[in-house]
């Protein structure tokens, strides 16, 4: 049994930022367990630019962004085990992991940070009819083939879903010489960042078909084409609008799911909307001493926000390990009227800092207001020129406001048109 103060599961941007922040806050023995062959997580395959604009105030590629953290980790005495898969988390923060060097590893830690990231929804999640031929894969899988392994997964491409990975891959495949026929999006709006629509589709001359989906795949062995159809306001395909589009590859960018199998195994409460753990302002879960951050907690649009969130978790873990956690009542947060969820789901009334609430809205709003209330009292009201489900929103609640909230009250965030 190896003993650590802090065990961080996942060595992507979230895990590294949390480990580094904990180190800076005086935690001594820290280990990062990473299942891939290197630190860096999914950033390693995101070779496009656009990372770090908020956090570093400069534009970096994914590997560059990761490199800054990898170098910092290397400069500390934080232990790192790569190619290492965590199999179980048991009562008392006991972790079992495995790799092909050490074999089975058992670790006991005072605190744990969960930073396993997320995975892409596969075809089965939306059940497209048709054949099960080859040539149908998630956009992220294709990204790994092209950027890490150096192979072309196809030549004539249709992309379903206008999430950021889908948009990035539309450009990437085009640059590698593939013909990207179109990007289809079920919703009447894109699910990606505006800058990605402009740079990845408009600039490359790739059509974006809104309110349109793939209803069938064709091909006995390799994919030969797909049938697409327009959808109505209930997102159901409209009969008669079906048309065939030739392609040998269908890339799916239809959403991300936080990878919370270990979290579930540990008996931690999950939020039904985020599919991540229910956490407080330091990202502590329902299990004392277990923290969660990054895409395993909520799917972020920008890695910069992952870093900010993960530093909070690292700081929280340090406070917990040193016995300095706040011991106040919890105030619940609640999203209503267009606000789908809020992270954190609860705030300690004796928190020692201002608290940012992160949330997403359910549809596109123009010129609407975000209103934060407590009981009948309006705490904050801010006008936003545009809000959409694909861009995470945030508001800051001051420490003194939090302190003034009576026990048992809820903090409510809503959209007011």
């Amino acid at each position, binding site marked *: 049994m190896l003993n650590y103060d802090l065990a961080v599961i996942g060595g992507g941007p979230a895990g590294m930022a949390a480990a580094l922040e904990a180190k800076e806050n005086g935690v001594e023995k820290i280990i990062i367990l990473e299942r891939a062959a290197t630190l860096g997580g999914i950033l390693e395959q995101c070779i496009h630019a656009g990372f770090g604009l908020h956090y570093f105030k400069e534009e970096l590629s994914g590997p560059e962004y990761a490199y800054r953290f990898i170098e910092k980790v290397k400069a500390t005495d934080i232990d790192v085990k790569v190619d290492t898969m965590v199999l179980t988390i048991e009562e008392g923060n006991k972790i079992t992991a*495995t790799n092909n060097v050490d074999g*089975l590893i058992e670790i006991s830690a005072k605190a744990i940070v969960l930073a396993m990231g997320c995975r892409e929804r596969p075809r*089965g999640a939306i059940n497209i*009819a048709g054949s*099960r*031929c*080859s040539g149908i894969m998630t956009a992220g899988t294709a990204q790994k083939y092209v950027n890490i392994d150096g*192979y072309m997964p196809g030549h004539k491409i249709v992309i379903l879903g206008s999430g950021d990975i889908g948009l990035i891959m539309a450009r990437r495949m085009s640059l590698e010489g593939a013909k990207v026929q179109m990007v289809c999006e079920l919703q009447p709006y894109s699910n990606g960042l505006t800058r990605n629509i402009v740079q990845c589709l408009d600039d490359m001359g790739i059509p974006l078909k809104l309110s349109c989906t793939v209803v*069938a795949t*064709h091909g006995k062995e390799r994919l030969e084409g797909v049938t697409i159809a327009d959808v109505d306001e209930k997102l159901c395909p409209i009969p008669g609008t079906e048309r065939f589009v030739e392609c040998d590859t269908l890339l799916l960018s239809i959403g991300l799911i936080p990878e919370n199998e270990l979290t579930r195994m540990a008996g931690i409460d999950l939020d039904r909307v985020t599919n991540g753990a229910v956490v407080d302002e330091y990202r502590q879960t329902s299990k004392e001493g277990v923290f969660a951050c990054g895409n395993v907690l909520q799917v972020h649009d920008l890695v910069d926000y992952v870093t900010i969130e993960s530093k909070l978790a690292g700081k929280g873990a340090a406070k917990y390990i040193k016995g300095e956690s706040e011991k106040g009542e919890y105030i619940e947060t609640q999203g209503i009227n267009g606000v789908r969820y809020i992270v954190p789901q609860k705030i300690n009334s004796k928190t020692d800092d201002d608290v940012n609430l992160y949330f997403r809205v359910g549809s596109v709003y123009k010129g609407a207001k975000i209103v934060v209330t407590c009981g009948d009292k309006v705490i904050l009201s801010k006008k936003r020129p545009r809000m959409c489900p694909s861009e995470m929103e945030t508001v800051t609640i001051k420490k003194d406001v939090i302190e003034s909230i009576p026990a048992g009250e809820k903090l409510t965030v809503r959209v007011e048109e």
Partner: protein
Amino acid sequence: MQFDVAIIGAGVSGALTARELSRYNMQVALIEKGSDVAVGSTKANSAIVHAGFDAENGTLKAKLNVEGTALMPQVCKELNVPYKNIGSLVVAYSEKEMQTVQTLYERGVNNGVPDMRVIDKAELKELEPMISDLAVGALWAPSAGIVCPYELTIAAAVNAAENGVGFFRNCEVKGIEDDGEYFTLDTAQGEIKAKYVINAAGVYSDTVARMIGDDSFNIIPRKGEYYLLDKSECSKVKHTVFVCPTEMGKGILLSPTVDGNVLAGPTSIDIEEKDDVDTTAAGLKLVSDNAPKSIPTINLRNSITSFTGIRAHTDRKDNDFVIGQSEKNARFINVAGIESPGLSSAPAIGKYVADIVLSLFPCEKKADFNPERPAPVRFREMSTEERKALIEKDKRYGRIICRCETVTEGEIIDAIQGPVGAIDMDGVKRRTRAGMGRCQSGFCGSKVVEILARELGKNVNDITKYGGESKIIYERTK
């Protein structure tokens, strides 16, 4: 190449027949058109070992089902294949349907099904706590079970191979000549001669029968569509839950699988093309509309994949299996029309067909026949201590490739290097479950491609999903 017996078709019937014949001193070849065993009707069905009350009394279906179901636990034990004797329920939602339940009960008794009971609502609720409140009673058949059809077939094939059966995959039979002593099979891999031919070619068994002039039956392929649900749904379904059968078929069932997922389906639609395994929007909707009728809390949104199976239904009026010597040629044995309960019957079909062969070609038993297929390593099912010992022996069992199903590199190498080993992605998937989990190979796919290429000495861009043109990747990037 000369054999005593050539079996055409490496589905569950062909593989278990091969295994039965491998007990005897005869030369047997198993010839398969596809890139692997278990890739036709066997691959995709309800994975149920039926109790045996469905088939009409006196039919071959009834006899072989009850016998096969009784043999299944022993066969699975010898082959180290997971089998669970969970029992099945036919649930009635009205007094009229209770009459159907009573009819099934009586038919089952006549067929020799053991221990069945007609149960009331209270007992049903106890057995299947999440069952719909609208249910009024059910037929409880405790002898029913579940087994993974391709796992059973692969294990039977491996065991047959280890007992001397010759395997030919990617080996379509294009024509058959007979000189009165030997059949000559014209195949994709050249001529194969055999004194006896067993036609276990599934949906193509009519095509193969016609090669010797036997047109006594036609196969009408019948499609069945399914959803496979995530393991998070498995706590909701304890037994195989049928609705009452109608003229339209057995209806949409819900059943746990041996791997802890839940199956919902199938539909039943006659189709034109024998290889039309496309799912359809209408078919999937029928499943998702009907599945919650038995278990209202079942969440079809937790589906991880959907698929289509093809049943080899015949046009014969008696609706029975077509098993026996062809009227056109006594050395040619048909094993055709093996639709439900074909999987349940398979162990008995193997014995039944072997007996026919032995009556024509008497043979001594082999002294060294080994009925056991060694259990493959299943890391995900091991205790911490077992895992420790395993990795100590071979570090490759310490490297997890498929994170959703916890499959190690060592297991994947075993699946490729073992007898009748995997030669493509789906072959690895069926042998190890790598890629069968929640992410459906999103993360491990490229690693499995690499391992396949390395172990088979091929280029990565020659690795396919299931043979033919089902390439995974093309050329190198610039």
